[in-house]
Each structure stands twice: as structure tokens, then as C-alpha cells.
């Protein structure tokens, strides 16, 4: 019974949203229902993120309780989470304390993680040639190198014609490839959505 109810709820809400998208001119009621359901989904998604964060806390506390390796790191994570959440709840997210947390922790660590990617990507490129030196790997690395040479500033300035030629050529080839990948992703999304709406896939626990 539960399976049928949850599947019916998912299918009905999905169909109403779809009708709201495609029949908004002919039936304005569907558009209003779509907006209402989307608003509900925003609240539920927000709660889902909170549940995820609560799960993160419980997993880290479990590690600490069982004295598993890395438990102390988990304690630090939970401590930082509770302090930041508490300050945000009491003072609001625009308070200077929260801004300072952004400037002191989130921005530097995010930027530094992206920065070390510059080194790891070079390492990965070298490993690629060592492990799989086939035609596709060579084309991949060649396209990357040519694009970097053409796009990056050079001490002697841009190379006339050559830079533009490389950018045009890689632009045409990569636009075609990216368009194919995008269409493929859209087709995949379409099929996955249809499978959910037909009740063939039930990722909400109705199986």
C-alpha cells in the first residue's frame, strides 16, 4: 500500500509540474499548482540538506565514540559546525562574525584547494602519457597544450595569426563535442525523468 501511495504522489506531483510548464497559457491553474509544488519542493529540499548535515554529525560522532582513526578530525568538524551554525542562528548570516568565518576559513581553503589542483593536474597529465599513450590521449594532451599556448599571455605578446587560428580550430572542434555531450546529457535526463514519472524508477524508497 505504501509503495502505491508514494509512487502515486511522485507521479501526480511530477505530472502537475509538467502540465504547468507546457500548458501554462491554456490552463493557468496548472501554472499556479506548479509554482506551489515547486515552493513545497524548496522547503523539503532545504530540510533534506539539514538531514544530510545531521547525518554528517552523527557519523563523525560515531567515529569519535568508537575511537576510530580520524575521530579527532571529526570532533573538530562537529565543533566548527556547531559554532558556525550557532553564531549564524543567533546573529544572522550577515553578521560580521559569519563574514569573518567566510573570509578566514571558507574562501582561503577553497582557493587553496583549487590552487593545488594546478600541480595535481600537471602530475595527472604526465601519468596519463605513461599509463595510456594511445591516439586519444595524445590528441587530448595536444589540444590542451595548444589551447593553453594560444589563450595564455606570453612574455613576447600574442603570436599573430597562429593564436587566433588555434583558438578558432579548437573552438569549432570543442563546441561540436561539447554540444554532443550536452545533448547526450539532456537525453539522459529526459529518460531518467520519464522513468521516474512512469514509476519505473522509485528512488524515494517505494521499491
Amino acid at each position: 500500500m505504501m509503495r502505491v501511495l508514494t509512487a502515486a504522489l511522485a507521479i501526480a506531483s511530477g505530472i502537475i509540474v509538467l502540465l504547468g510548464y507546457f500548458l501554462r497559457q491554456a490552463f493557468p491553474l496548472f501554472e499556479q499548482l506548479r509554482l506551489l509544488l515547486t515552493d513545497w519542493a524548496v522547503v523539503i529540499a532545504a530540510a533534506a540538506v539539514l538531514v544530510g548535515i545531521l547525518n554528517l554529525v552523527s557519523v563523525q560522532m560515531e567515529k569519535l565514540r568508537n575511537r576510530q582513526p580520524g575521530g579527532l578530525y571529526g570532533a573538530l568538524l562537529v565543533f566548527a559546525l556547531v559554532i558556525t551554525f550557532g553564531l549564524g542562528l543567533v546573529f544572522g548570516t550577515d553578521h560580521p562574525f559569519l563574514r569573518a568565518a567566510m573570509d578566514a576559513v571558507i574562501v582561503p581553503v577553497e582557493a587553496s584547494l583549487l590552487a593545488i589542483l594546478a600541480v595535481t593536474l600537471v602530475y595527472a597529465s604526465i601519468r596519463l602519457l605513461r599509463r595510456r599513450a594511445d591516439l586519444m590521449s595524445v590528441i587530448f594532451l595536444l589540444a590542451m597544450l595548444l589551447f593553453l599556448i594560444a589563450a595564455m599571455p606570453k612574455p613576447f605578446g600574442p603570436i599573430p595569426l597562429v593564436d587566433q587560428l588555434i583558438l578558432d580550430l579548437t573552438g569549432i572542434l570543442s563546441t561540436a563535442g561539447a554540444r554532443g555531450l550536452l545533448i547526450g546529457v539532456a537525453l539522459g535526463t529526459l529518460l531518467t525523468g520519464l522513468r521516474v514519472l512512469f514509476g519505473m524508477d522509485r528512488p524515494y524508497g517505494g521499491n
Partner: protein
Amino acid sequence: MPLIEFVSAIVGFVLTLMVFSYLIGDTPLFRIAVYLFIGVASGYAAAVIVNDVLLARLQSLPLGDPALLVIGLIPFLLAITLLAKLFPRVAWLGNFAMAVLVGVGAATALAGALTGTLIPQAEAAVDAVDPRSLTGLAGGGVMLIGTAGTLAYFHFGAKRAADGTVKRNAAVEALAWVGRLFIAVTLGVVFAGVYTAALTALIERLNSLMLFIKSILGL
């Protein structure tokens, strides 16, 4: 420099060095920085969700209209049932909320994929072919072949041959091989873009480290 900015500059400086310690290996300093980051970022996200999404919507509920109030409270009731997902015995209670979320999400993604990607990209692929000029015809034709080839590469429909082996159609196979070339170039260009972003971040971080040291030394 105000005290709060000075403290955040010191913390940022130290955390940057701790993250950079990853270049010599997966050190405890790197782990401390990453766990601290995840904790602060999660706490910040939770605070934003509670303040700007949940409390903001609760405060805007129409208290004077009982019918609208009930409709407005439904998502909050569903949201509360999601907490049951943390306890295996009553986890099924959260399935209703998940069903609404998945249904709305699937329909939104479906409509978005159709109207935002599939139709515009297919139109752009055709529009790129300009039969009025040779360059337009050649450039657009190459792009059309590349797009079709990329799609063909991910087409895995095959038939059983007379000798029992499973093979793709020869035309699809050839188109897929061309598609692989386009995919390799595309991923190469994407890789170059990511590398450029990473290099920019590296320069910015090194610059901020130098500026902080200069400001401490009074240079």
C-alpha cells in the same frame, strides 16, 4: 586593520599553508584544514537554510486565512517527516516527502532538459551550417558531424553477427570513431580551462601570502 579582519587574515594565512602542505603528502595539517573547512561550510549552509529558507517562509505564512495557512504548513509537515530518515525503523515516514521532492525534481529536470538544452542545442547545431558561404558550410558541417559523432559514441545498440559476436552497425562505428576525436579535443579544452582557473587561484593565493607577510613586516 580592525581586530576581526586581522585575526581572519592570520587564520586564512595559516590555513593556506596547511592546505599547501598536501604538496608534500597527505599530512595531518591538510586534514585539519579540510575538516575545519567542511565543518564551517556545513554550519554556514545550515544557518542560511534555517534563517533564509525555513524561518523566512514560516514568517510569511498567512495567519489570517486558515485555508492558505494549512496549504502553507503542508511542506513543513513533510519536511519534519524527513527527520525520520535518520532512524531506520521509522525511515518509511520520510518517503512521502521524498516522493514529492523526486516527482517535482524529475519533472523540472525533464522540462529544463527539453526546453533549455535539447531544443536550443539541436537548433544551434543546424543553424551553424550556413549554405550561403563555403566557410559557413564547411565549419557548420564539421560541427554537425562532430555533434553527431559524439552522440554516436554513446550509442551502444548492437546486433549479433553471423559468427556470434556482438557488433555495432559499421556506419555507427565509423561515426563513433570520429566522435571520439571530438570528445578528446573537447575534454582537452575543458582540462585547459580548469587548469587556467587553478593556476589563477594559485597565483592569487601566493600573492595573498606575500601581501600578508609584507603587511606584518611593515613593508
